[in-house]
């Protein structure tokens, strides 16, 4: 099951609206200000410095109709904060682009008197969930890569005269005692001198 939903206190949070000057920006700014956010507006044309405007913001709203990949001041498809698409045209090509850009929620244009609050919470939750999932996948992937280390650690413990099942049991107990993963414990046993071993230092396993 998922974590409980975090209803963030949005007071003082900062939002950037990447959209050319337009009644949509006025209406959205009014909503966000009422909720308690600080709002900036920017649009990448002329000598606009979008990167400066984007520094330190917590949410970014962007125009999905006129937007393009180069308009975000971060590496392609790696937004550092939750993104909310401002959609006028529901043409599939535009939806596809907004999704690829990393939108976690959307508001339909014309933006009126409501919708921003739920978009903020939905985007925040989706962004956090995605982050957590990415971290978990990265950890699992790393542990998967340590399979060989586990085999080596078990082999080393067997070399001290234990049968395989007991050696494996001992490794598990060490991991539990150290409160680290089985793979990390194996890394400590195999030691840093081994090229394929884990990165933990052998010195602290006594």
């Amino acid at each position, binding site marked *: 099951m998922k974590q409980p939903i975090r209803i963030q206190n949005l007071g003082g949070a900062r939002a950037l609206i990447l959209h050319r000057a337009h009644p949509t920006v006025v209406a959205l700014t009014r909503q966000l200000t009422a909720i308690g956010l600080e709002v900036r507006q920017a649009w990448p044309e002329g000598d606009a410095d979008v990167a400066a405007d984007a520094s330190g913001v917590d949410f970014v709203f962007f125009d999905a109709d006129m937007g393009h990949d180069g308009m975000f001041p971060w590496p392609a498809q790696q937004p550092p904060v939750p993104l909310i698409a401002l959609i006028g*045209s529901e043409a599939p090509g535009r939806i596809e682009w907004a999704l690829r850009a990393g939108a976690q929620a959307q508001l339909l244009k014309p933006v009126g008197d409501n919708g921003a609050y739920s978009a903020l919470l939905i985007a925040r939750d989706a962004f956090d969930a995605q982050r957590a999932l990415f971290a978990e996948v990265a950890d699992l992937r790393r542990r998967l890569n340590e399979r060989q280390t586990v085999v080596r650690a078990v082999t080393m413990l067997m070399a001290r005269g234990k049968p395989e099942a007991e050696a494996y049991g001992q490794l598990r107990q060490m991991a539990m005692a150290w409160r680290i993963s089985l793979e990390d414990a194996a890394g400590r046993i195999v030691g840093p001198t081994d090229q394929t071993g884990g990165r933990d230092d052998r010195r602290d396993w006594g």
Partner: protein
Amino acid sequence: MIEKRRIPLGILYSASGSYALISQACRVGVSSAINAVNADPALDLAFVPVVRDPAGNVDLYGPMCEDILRHSGANHVIGCVTSWSRKEVIPTLEKHGGSLWYAVPYEGFEASDHIVYTHACSNQHLLPLLAFVMPRFGGRGFLAGSNYIWGWEMSRLARERIMQAGGVVLGERYLPIGSVDVDRMIEEIRLARPDFVLNSLIGPSSYAFMVAYRALGLSDPHFAPARCPVLSCNLTECELPALGGAAEGLIAAGPYFCGAAGWPRQRCDFGSSHEAAAFAAVMELARLLAHRPGGEHLSLARLLAEHSGTPGIIDVQTHHTVLPVIIAQVRGGAFHPLRRIEGVAGDPYLTRGCDVRAAPLLRVVS
């Protein structure tokens, strides 16, 4: 003679700017329909035009539409050429309960309760056009478009259909609206050597492109219209004067080309499908309002739902219309029909099976 109600009708076209020729064609269609309605002794209404000219400035469409709806007493507006401008007036229409009659081809994926779409959407232009062209010329396409929703969506859909048919997209390039900087695009096409080029450029960009492509075709026979034609879903007779000989060989899709009979049912002497679709829109509005005093104050939804006469041209669910699809080629300065498909209903979300699919391309297996 029957007494005529005087009903204001908003007209919102740009007399200047990059798509002025299309606006002008629509204006002609609107004017001739207003004249026909006002002179018809059997109709109990006369339209009074309320004209506003945004001069090609997209930011003026919303305010000018609001001005019409608030101050002239008009509840119906005919106008807008680009999808961008159409999107800009939707909030105003919703706020004031007004209706827009939109008479130019567009990319689909919209079905506003406040808009009637009397020209073609994708299943009435692009899809039948590709289905016609690919078996005859080949499946290797190059996609050129203006850098806004029309160009993007036409290219996306074309790519999808070309791939489905087993073809390949050799390139996809965009120009900012108004830009005539076509040299790089032409050079890429020259190197890619496709079987056809889909031109979804608008206005001066399209004119410059057609002129440069014509020159390429004269220097390299691969790019002659018989080998690698240019396709368009938005070029009609109204822009031929800007193209001159550069339009020769162009293959276009639309519901009407000069002289085609059947749609609109009243006449067949329009200058272009833009003119015809604008005419059809005003005539249908007059038909819906005729002998319904006060009908001009109804919302579009009620105007359609509560009409008791014969069914009109508008689908009450999608607000699109049933149109013929004509594929035509420019020969000697005029469009000559190559193929005609009758009665294709507008299917803006491509979900109702009103689709003309390209047959898979046959390959020689060796």
